[in-house]
């Protein structure tokens, strides 16, 4: 739909107010992720179109020849347990007012999921409102993690004497190199391709821009960078990457100066709990808060169980001793896992092997390290023999994982 169309209200103000009320009601009720059987191999609906421009795809439902509802799918790669998974980032979900509450947005999301499945996507992520997306199998998988440190304490951190300068395009290659080194063992961050990545674009609330400063060592060489979400009155450090982690103290000092300028008593670190900057703050008495939402915020699900596990197998199966087999049956796909002498193979479901039954979103939560197999089993979400639960625990240990604000879509 074009901007001119958007300005032309097709409904009365009263009807729009009623819609807003219904939407507020919907968002006040957290929902449980769906466990219903899914078939994402179905064809797209006849009135659904997908327009692509590079790595951005627009899925739309047309009614009477015009777009009634649509969403964007960003083609991204997400780092999970040391491998890149093809991830579809869903954003810009919207429905024209006159078509709302008629199931059009539901058809958009369902068709976007089918389209991603057909396009070889492994997983998908979106930043959603409460109460709407769990019915499509999306579930929370990324906690909100923030650490706090007294400004005066941060200002006294041990430092190497780095100098910080504003980011400029000449630093792009080094910034990306440093970023990819930092995230190589992490789960959650996305791959930033030099030709496509738009540097320091989104903030925590999709704006204003994130401010980045590049660290230079005493010899003037690139030593890393940090980025902050600057809301004017408040500032949060949202990303940091260093060639030498001993420079984390320099970043803390710089963040303290930024915070002090705005009258903040505490430096706020919107970083993974195991980030080197947070680790360097541990001896200084840092407080880390981790909040797992029930619904809303970053929501995650699997698009293809088999392709996801095939990509992860070389990494998650390398520590396995002995031999074993297991069938993993989700509401989306069923696959077989067979391991022998440190090698894990993903096959079709294996007849006669022990069964592990769980919804795809629960497997997704395990894969990123959000939920442990034992906690899912205790909650009755994972139904599997004890040795299968143990195998899952070994494959997918709970671990810190994080999605950087700068890569929101």
């Amino acid at each position, binding site marked *: 739909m074009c901007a001119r169309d958007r300005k032309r209200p097709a409904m009365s103000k009263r009807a729009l107010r009623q819609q807003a009320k219904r939407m507020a009601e919907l968002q006040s009720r957290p929902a449980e992720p769906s466990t219903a059987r899914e078939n994402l191999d179905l064809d797209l609906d006849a009135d659904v179109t997908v327009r692509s421009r590079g790595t951005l795809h627009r899925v739309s439902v047309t009614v009477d020849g015009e777009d009634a509802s649509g969403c964007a799918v960003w083609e991204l790669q997400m780092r999970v347990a040391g491998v890149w998974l093809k991830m579809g980032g869903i954003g810009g979900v919207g429905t024209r007012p006159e078509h709302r509450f008629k199931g059009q947005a539901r058809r958009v999301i369902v068709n976007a999921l089918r389209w991603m499945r057909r396009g070889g996507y492994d997983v998908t992520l979106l930043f959603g409102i409460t109460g709407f997306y769990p019915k499509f199998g999306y579930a929370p998988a990324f906690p909100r993690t923030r650490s706090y440190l007294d400004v005066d304490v941060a200002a006294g951190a041990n430092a190497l004497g780095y100098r910080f300068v504003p980011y400029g395009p000449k630093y792009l290659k080094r910034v990306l190199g440093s970023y990819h080194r930092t995230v190589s063992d992490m789960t959650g961050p996305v791959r930033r391709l030099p030709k496509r990545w738009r540097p320091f674009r989104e903030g925590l609330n999709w704006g204003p821009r994130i401010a980045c400063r590049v660290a230079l060592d005493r010899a003037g060489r690139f030593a890393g960078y940090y980025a902050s979400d600057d809301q004017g009155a408040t500032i949060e450090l949202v990303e940091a990457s260093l060639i030498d982690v001993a420079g984390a103290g320099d970043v803390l000092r710089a963040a303290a100066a930024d915070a002090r300028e705005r009258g903040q008593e505490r430096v706020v670190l919107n970083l993974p709990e195991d980030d080197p900057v947070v680790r360097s703050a541990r001896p200084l*008495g840092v407080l880390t808060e981790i*909040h797992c939402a029930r619904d809303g915020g970053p929501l995650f699900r699997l698009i293809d169980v088999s392709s996801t596990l095939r990509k992860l197998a070389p990494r998650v199966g390398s520590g396995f001793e002995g031999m074993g087999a297991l069938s993993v049956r989700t509401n989306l796909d069923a696959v077989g896992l067979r391991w022998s002498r440190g090698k894990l193979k993903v096959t079709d479901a294996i007849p006669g092997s022990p069964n592990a039954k769980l919804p795809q979103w629960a497997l997704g939560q395990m894969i990123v390290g959000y939920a442990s197999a034992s906690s899912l089993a205790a909650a009755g979400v994972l139904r599997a023999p004890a040795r299968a639960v143990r195998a899952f625990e070994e494959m997918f240990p709970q671990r810190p994982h994080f999605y950087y604000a700068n890569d929101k879509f």
Partner: protein
Amino acid sequence: MSDGPDGLTIRGATEADREELLAFLSTQMGAEREYFDAAFRYRPGALWEHSRVGVVDGRIACHIRLYPREMRLAGGTVRTANIGDVCTDPAHRHKGFGGALLRDGLAYMAAHGIPMSIIHSGVTGFYASGGWETFPQRGYSFAPRRPLLRVPGIEVRRMRRHADLDAVARVHGAHSAGRSLAVVRDESYWRTHFSWVGDDEREFLVAEDDGGVVGYVRSYRGAVHEIAYLPERPRAADALLEAVVRRRSKRAEGRVEIALDAPTDLPSLAGLRDAGVLVEKVRWHMLVRSVSLKALLEAVAPGLHPPRDERRVALRSGNEAAAVVFDGDEARVDPDDGADAVEVTQRDLFLWLTGEAPLGASGGAAGAWALLREMVRSGAPHFWMIDHV
């Protein structure tokens, strides 16, 4: 008695110092004199000499208090000295008096066979310079969107001191058995602690099931200081938390937020997490220090398990080294030159002994940590802040 900087003399306090010391502490620490008087008198095993005072020109100029405790660690029991009530007269600050007192405290601990020390403070840098290292302490907060569900079959009521104390002590003992960082509380603790614990008796609740006490909670104005239950009655924790929330909702205006000091294995946490109302908090405000590696290992040795492929495991931390030697399932500690020892930082030493994941347990060190991990079977460590001073 020892000499410090700028004419400072450090010694243990005596009964004769009582009036001056209590007046000094109430002035410097901003608490009532009676609080310190009660804490120093009624705490089991408390001695005047546990107050280490620095004296200048015959007047007390600075103070630290050692609070000796027996604490569970790695399946064994270890003596610790918690340090609190650290203060210096403003006229004598920035002269190194505080550091001198900490050194004296360490010497006192070494002389009295106390192998580790704990401090809780927001001023971590000062203690880090004395060799203490920050250690994670987990806590939670939650703001329920709606009242929690009552647990059928479990009644929660106020604790009756004379009738329930023995049962409460039994619940505490069962809940803390094998739990690292839990302070051992003997009978005298339970008999005398109301003398110094203040007025939180009003919010000391017990959970009853079939006529017996199966759990208890101590809270104050929406802050849960301690919650324990019999391992076979985990639902008691839900019932107790429900009662705390209900009582707080009656008294507080607006949104109720509960601060929760509890170990990670509290059964209620999963439900609160699933409901999306739980915030996990990891504070690095607790500081730990080994006074003697050998004495520390000797204390925990009875609880260590032999690894599959090794009979002798040598450890080096700082300037000290010692080896744990297994004879069957029995462990003893021998001196070691440290040449082939597994090297651990002090923080990792305590993370290992408490069953937490050591920070250095990755990369090339992973094999050594796997070996060490076989020796310790202890989960969900927790230090109740109520046990600090």
